[in-house]
């Protein structure tokens, strides 16, 4: 199995795009990554996207984007696993390069949600759930998060305000990220009185509806010498792993444990031959505060039932033992569903390349990105290290 390296990264600010459509957004992120990379020829393209089917009436995004970036002809694929689509696309691109069939691969995560009505987005993201036994009963993605959160508070005797640590940290860190959607810190007093979306989940507990595109260029490590030498430092993919769980929360062994995230992170630690303590930052899937808490626990960064409390006590701060959402996370950078997993990886690469300014995690040599589909059915973990 060949080693695989990230040689270029690109992103557009997470925002609401009214004058650029899906193909344009993908183009902009991909061209940035390509230009950043020093690669001459791209051999294959992967597009991570969750919602173009219904929100843009468009399928076959692999071919569409390949053509639009001037690469008509190359192999291309669209990969989907809810809001883990981007990360799962990266895993496929990783395998494509590792296999030896392709030397270079572009990967873009792209999503356009803001042009649709909120009710259309809610209907579309409900498809991340089990249609027959969750969505048909009236469940939305947020309502399932809420069910998990209420039970978590009950079972582990956690006050709701403990969850404030997640949006608070995310917004604080986003202030210094020019690509983030919300670049303003939030106050606990606001968190306490802001409107509920699905009790006990409030508007600050969930990531916004938004648009975005982020991209990386992969290159087989044994082909690196062919690249031009003035490029940025390459970043090694030390692990790329995927695991799954029941789609419906009610079907899981423990509704309060993200088994897929656990398995995927364990496989990743093993593949990278690293312990949690060897890793300096963790971009986790904070699509809601409860998912952030459960992700900390699944990745072994907090004991079961302690994720929220540990976060409130400083675990996840930039200078804490397990910094997460270092550039704003899903909550404040934004969660453009199928693009999110690539934003995470781009941000870790930025950290390892020391391009994160005031948010730089000092001594960062390894970072973990974990992306989750919906409420936990698909989990994709990448560990990046300096080469």
């Amino acid at each position, binding site marked *: 199995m060949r080693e695989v390296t990230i040689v270029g990264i690109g992103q557009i600010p997470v925002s609401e795009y009214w004058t650029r459509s899906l193909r344009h957004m993908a183009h902009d992120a991909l061209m940035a990554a390509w230009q950043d990379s020093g690669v001459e020829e791209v051999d294959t393209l992967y597009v991570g996207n969750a919602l173009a089917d219904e929100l843009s009436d468009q399928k076959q995004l692999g071919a569409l984007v390949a053509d639009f970036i001037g690469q008509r002809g190359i192999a291309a694929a669209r990969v989907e696993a809810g809001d883990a689509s981007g990360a799962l696309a990266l895993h496929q691109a990783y395998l494509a390069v590792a296999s030896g069939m392709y030397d270079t691969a572009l990967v873009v995560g792209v999503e356009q949600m803001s042009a649709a009505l909120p009710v259309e987005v809610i209907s579309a993201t409900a498809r991340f759930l089990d249609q027959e036994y969750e969505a048909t*009963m*009236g469940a939305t993605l947020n309502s399932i998060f809420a*069910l998990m959160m209420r*039970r978590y508070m009950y079972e582990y005797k956690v006050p709701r305000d403990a969850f404030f640590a997640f949006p608070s940290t995310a917004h604080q860190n986003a202030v210094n990220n020019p690509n983030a959607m919300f670049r303003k810190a939030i106050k606990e007093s606001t968190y306490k009185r802001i409107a509920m979306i699905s009790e006990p989940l409030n508007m600050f507990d969930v990531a916004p509806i938004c648009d975005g595109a982020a991209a990386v260029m992969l290159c087989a490590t044994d082909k690196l010498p062919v690249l031009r030498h003035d490029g940025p430092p390459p970043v090694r993919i030390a692990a790329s792993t995927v695991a799954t769980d029941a789609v419906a929360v009610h079907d899981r062994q423990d509704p309060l444990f993200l088994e897929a995230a656990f398995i995927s992170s364990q496989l990743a630690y093993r593949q990278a031959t690293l312990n949690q303590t060897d890793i300096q930052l963790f971009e986790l899937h904070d699509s809601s505060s409860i998912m952030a808490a459960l992700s900390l626990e699944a990745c072994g960064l907090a004991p079961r039932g302690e994720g929220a409390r540990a976060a409130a006590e400083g675990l996840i701060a930039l200078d804490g033992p397990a910094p997460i959402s270092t550039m704003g996370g899903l909550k404040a950078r934004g969660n453009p569903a199928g693009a999110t997993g690539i934003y995470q990886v781009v941000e870790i690469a930025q950290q390892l390349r020391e391009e994160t300014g005031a948010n730089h995690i000092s001594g960062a040599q390894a970072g973990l990105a974990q992306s989750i589909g919906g409420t936990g059915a698909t989990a994709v973990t990448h560990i990046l290290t300096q080469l």
Partner: protein
Amino acid sequence: MHIAQNWRLKAQRYRLVGEVCEHCGAKIFPPRDICPNCSHSAKESFEFSGRGEVYSFSALSETAEKFQRFRPYTMALVKLEEGPLVTAQLTDVEPDKVKIGMPVEMVTRRLMEEGNEGIILYGYKFRPMLDKVA
């Protein structure tokens, strides 16, 4: 849309028909082809009593398109007395009266309306167990 899909799931939705695994005895709902407990094939039907208790709940008003007419409503995870958890709506109860652990029982109610043809879908919801409340 999806008339067949709804028709297909009638037994489950109207009567909470799941399965009991012939190998390990696990009571399974929703029904599956393979027992999630022991990985043997699961084919024997089992009708659940419909009794259980609230495991978690949440009142919401931001719903998907087909549920707009019915909002607000309260979603819940209900732990059936035979073991499985079920995702379903609570009915006949104000959200602020719901508590984790509250005994509930299954009833058949209108779930949603399918857009174009106005097809109405019925299925299980749970309400406070009458004898326990009285």
